[in-house]
């Protein structure tokens, strides 16, 4: 609706070349679908034959590496190596040959756009996480008490299957704005004008609302995920415990606060940290809805812009490192949680 995307506008008028599609791509797809599993199974069978040739004594110490090897290789290549590379790059100039110390960070952290992006990331962090948890808990709690629980859960969970891009299309029709002298076509302005007789609002451009409007899209998408996990934790609470509290005369709110909430805390923490990570990584919604305009930019989108539109590796690396620094506390927290769980085994 904004037409502000920096991508080449391609109207859907191109004729499909079904000939090439069928003759070239289909065989490739078949080859891939059959070939990839065969190669993987072949790898494990082949290496096992090789390991069996080794002396019996050294087999147990070699075999595990055959099994974890591919994973370590891929993770090393795709995650660890580039992570180190980016951190190093963030201390060099944009051509990568002159050490500049913290200059990139200084430049980025004094840039007005980056500061706005940082502020918006904080909005995302707090509101997105908070609202997803609130709605997730509320829905898990309420749906538990109705007979059509399954239907409710399926419908709330459904956005999980929708891409952020399709979500953006869906929500553009919710937030669409038209001047007040013509009929509204956006759902929200339709309600605002037809039912409350108010003035239509430019939800996406108005800097008072737009960040929240975008965050709401994310919340809509993630609540189902939170609800399903929280609902499972809720159902895991022994019924006798709740019964006992009721017999003692506690009302539902007290039971919720004193019994249910503490018992669900570990699960809430897991879901919460997952949402915090999602919030920090958020990209798609902003990229598709506003391309970061109207003060809605976030770090991941700005980084993409530095990389592609500005072609500045140094600035992009510095932003990526800032993102990493924000994740580190969550990471440490996660590891500690994980070890605590392991120790209880």
């Amino acid at each position, binding site marked *: 609706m904004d037409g502000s995307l920096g991508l080449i506008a391609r109207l*859907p008028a191109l004729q499909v070349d079904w000939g090439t599609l069928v003759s070239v791509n289909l065989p490739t797809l078949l080859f891939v679908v059959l070939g990839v599993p065969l190669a993987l199974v072949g790898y494990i069978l082949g290496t*096992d034959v090789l390991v069996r040739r080794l002396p019996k004594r050294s087999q147990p110490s070699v075999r595990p590496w055959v099994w974890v090897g591919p994973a370590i290789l891929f993770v090393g290549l795709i995650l660890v190596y580039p992570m180190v590379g980016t951190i190093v790059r963030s201390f060099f100039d944009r051509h990568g040959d002159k050490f500049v110390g913290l200059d990139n960070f200084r430049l980025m952290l004094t840039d007005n756009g980056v500061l706005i992006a940082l502020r918006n990331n904080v909005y995302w962090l707090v509101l997105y996480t908070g609202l997803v948890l609130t709605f997730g808990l*509320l829905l898990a709690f309420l749906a538990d008490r109705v007979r059509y629980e399954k239907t409710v859960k399926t*419908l709330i969970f459904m956005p999980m299957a929708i891409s*952020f891009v399709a979500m953006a299309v869906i929500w553009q029709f919710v937030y669409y704005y038209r001047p007040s002298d013509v009929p509204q076509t956006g759902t929200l302005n339709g309600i605002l004008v037809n039912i409350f007789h108010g003035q239509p609002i430019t939800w996406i451009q108005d800097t008072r609302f737009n960040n929240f409007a975008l965050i709401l899209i994310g919340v809509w998408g993630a609540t189902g995920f939170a609800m399903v996990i929280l609902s499972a934790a809720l159902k895991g609470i022994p019924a006798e415990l709740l019964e006992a509290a009721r017999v003692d005369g506690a009302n539902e709110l007290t039971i919720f606060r004193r019994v249910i909430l503490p018992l669900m805390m570990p699960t809430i923490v897991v879901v919460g940290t997952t949402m915090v*990570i999602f919030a920090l990584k958020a990209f798609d919604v902003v990229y598709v809805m506003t391309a970061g305009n109207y003060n809605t930019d976030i770090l991941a989108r700005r980084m993409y812009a530095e990389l592609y539109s500005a072609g500045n590796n140094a600035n992009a690396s510095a932003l990526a490192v800032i993102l990493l620094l924000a994740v580190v506390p969550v990471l440490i927290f*996660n590891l500690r949680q994980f070890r605590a769980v392991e120790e209880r085994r």
Partner: protein
Amino acid sequence: MSVATAAPPAAPPVRTATKRLRWSERISAGVSSAGLNVAVVALTLAWIVPTLGLLINSFRQGGAFNTSGWWTALAPPFNFTLDSYRAVLGASDLAPSFFNSFMITIPATLIPTAIAAFAAYAFAWMKFWGRNWIFLALVGLLAVPLQLTFIPLLTLAVKLGLNSGNTLPGGLNAGFLAVWIAHTGYGLPFAIYLLANFFRVLPTDLFESAEIDGAGPVTVFFRLVLPLSVPALASLIIFQFLWVWNDLLVALIYVGGTPEVAPLTVTLTNLVGSLGQHREYLTAAAFVSMIVPLIVFFTLQRYFVRGILAGSVKG
């Protein structure tokens, strides 16, 4: 759940008291149950209205939604049509990108699942140096933002010729290979975490008796571990499938806007940017892009839910 708990027979005087209490309780329960139902239905409606609006708009006559809200189409006369779908499926970039989405998603789901299953088997049932630390490092990597990896990986991909302009032997576009490798790396930490947690709680005696029978690790893996782990594997496959199918960022980075390799999400994004006078296509295009994940989601929902739970809620 609460019905099953057997109540001991109460003495007569108490019974009348509880009966009266229950009667008054039933009224308040009736009121609050009405409130409960209203709240649940209202929340659910709020959740589906955005999608519903788009669905209705996608069936309206060309351009009708430019001048009136989707809700007006719910009143007669009902002028619904399949024009938008016909237009989108017949003459657009959408059909090739539909294919590209499969081309990217299938291998990018199979490869990490298989590699993660191998690794998870080792983590759960083999002893080796640094096992716990390596596993912990993998769990930690779950939190690393993908954005951190793009610059060095892109440089590497271009150096190795793995950019979307090149064609590999066999006619495969090199961009595909780059995306598969990238998705494999990004998907592995979660995949290993999920599967290792599942493998670890498989019954130990089963493995011991298999070993006594002389079965090697390969036999145990294919004959015991995999068949027993179907729920976890299925959920992981669904998870990874949805994730890769719906991904925009990784696709944009590694294949860019090149139409020959662009998946649905990229093409749809381009459509969003090129609204112009063809906005009616967009509604149908969005739904076309949702068809496959929604089918996957609705048919395999049960596994999907069980899978996420395997990793987060301890039974």
